[in-house]
């Protein structure tokens, strides 16, 4: 399955999970800021990606979870250097450039997850 095929299926996943039109699902669209995803939608998206691509996704593998529970990763609501490095290491599918030298508020973390992040994730997952 090539990247275009994956993108097309991700469009369908987001159409079903978020009720958005496929033409809104552009590669750079943020799941939260542009497509209106809320926390429970992330679980819905995980379930649908598993079914669509026949893959198994562990909790926290696709979307970061419970970061704030770890003081080494988050301080005063912002990602620490260690937190950012941990995310980069664990989540190669997400471009964390927005946090480099800028506002590291974890409230913005959702904005960093785009349609492309999901396509990257599936591509990496299928490559095994």
């Amino acid at each position, binding site marked *: 399955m090539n990247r275009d095929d994956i993108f097309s299926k991700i469009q369908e996943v987001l159409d079903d*999970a978020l009720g958005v039109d496929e033409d809104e699902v552009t590669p750079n669209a943020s799941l939260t800021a542009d497509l209106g995803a809320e926390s429970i939608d992330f*679980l*819905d998206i995980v*379930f649908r990606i*598993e*079914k669509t691509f026949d893959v198994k996704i562990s909790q926290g593998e696709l979307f970061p979870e419970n970061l704030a529970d770890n003081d080494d990763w988050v301080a005063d609501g912002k990602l620490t250097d260690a937190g950012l490095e941990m995310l980069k290491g664990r989540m190669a599918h997400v471009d964390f450039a927005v946090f480099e030298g800028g506002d590291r508020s974890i409230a913005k973390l959702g904005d960093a997850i785009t349609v492309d992040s999901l396509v990257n994730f599936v591509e990496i997952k299928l490559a095994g």
Partner: protein
Amino acid sequence: MRWLWIDRIVDHEPNKRLVAIKNVSLAEEHLHDYIVDGQVVMPASLLIEGMAQTAGILVGTTSHFKEKVILAKITKASFDSEVTAGDTVRYDATIDRIDDAGAATSGAVDRRVAGGEAWERIGRIELMFSHIDNNMAGTEFPEHNFVFSDNFQMILDAAGLGDYVCRQDA
């Protein structure tokens, strides 16, 4: 007392499927506020609540009601016909996917009209449930399971499923 929107569980396949029925009665005052073509009808929102209670109990049984199962999302709901007093509604719920964070369910809503014998499919509902203790970082909830209260126990007992709750203390 929680408002119950199912009367009886009629079938249960553990971890997979639960079926419940509700008899719709003119004694339900809310019906009198919803009249279509001169006939009282059950609001779609309450049909969704009936499915949420059916599917929610099904999700709850998988953890023997240790998890607090909260309806988090109505993914899809569509109806083709109305339900009126005298009809029986049947909710047939199936778990599509479940993990520590929550569950996705899908199900059919069937109707048997007053005096009839055949069931007719009138709707489809897909729902998402959250296991809230695993999803609300930093938020603490009461230790007891306030979601599945005593009147749910009554319904479970009537269906022979009472043990599912008791086992949480075992």
